[in-house]
């Protein structure tokens, strides 16, 4: 399963900014609720996280030593 940015619905105020900046259509708004869909096209540009005024989206990095994944 492909990891996607994480959304905290409790913090989201549905402003739609993340939907508008995402280039790959991974973030959709349906009946005033944001959903993040799994897609290979998401290259972790982190723009959704950057643009969100409510810190509702996070794009975390896993940190690993080489050859230890």
């Amino acid at each position: 399963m492909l990891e996607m940015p994480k959304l905290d619905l409790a913090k989201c105020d549905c402003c739609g900014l993340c939907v508008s900046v995402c280039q790959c259509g991974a973030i959709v708004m349906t009946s005033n609720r944001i959903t993040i869909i799994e897609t290979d096209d998401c290259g972790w540009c982190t723009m959704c996280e950057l643009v969100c005024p409510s810190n509702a989206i996070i794009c975390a990095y896993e940190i690993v030593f080489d050859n230890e994944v």
Partner: protein
Amino acid sequence: MATNREFLASIPYFSGLDDDELDSIGQSFSERKVERGEIIQLEGEVVGELFFVASGAIKVFKTSSDGKEQILSIVRPGEAFNDIAIFDDAISPVSAQAMAPVTLYGISRIELHTLLRDYPRVALNTTRVLAERTRQLMSLIEDLSFRHVIGRVARVLLENAGNGTAPGTRLTQQEMAAMVGSVREVVARSLKALEAEGAIKLERNRIRITDRKALENMVEASA
């Protein structure tokens, strides 16, 4: 063009104005639509209009001589992005690009001057907005000039990396920034610098430490 009164009221520049004043100010604005990715303003360009973002988002950035982009801020609805150059009548110190389809409300320099003369309240609000922006830019500049941030980022990576058996902590750039006492923009830049030096490799949602020794040296050098 009649500009949305509620939108104007939400802009810090125009806070405290009554409906009639807002309606009359609204007459001075014109709307402009911008595509995603479009450059709205280039560093070094002459600025003739003050733009407020009505919908969408814009990134404000500078480009270094070697072509690297440094994001300075994200401008969201209700905020302006080219006020510095509008007020000192000089060229723009930054570039601005639409991160999404964007609607802008623009007011020409001449109309703006009239506004400032006619509405002392707007002039007062403006000084406050500019002071806030100065404060924000100063903290960013202070941080950008601190060479040791990169060493602190290196330490955070080493301390949070998984070791094969235990998985590493997952961190956002924002969290790393909080840990090193800096801002996200500087962390993003530090990570790119560490990658350019071959110490790490940035993969999709993973930071792979490829040269542990190099990172340790950087931590020592900044201690």
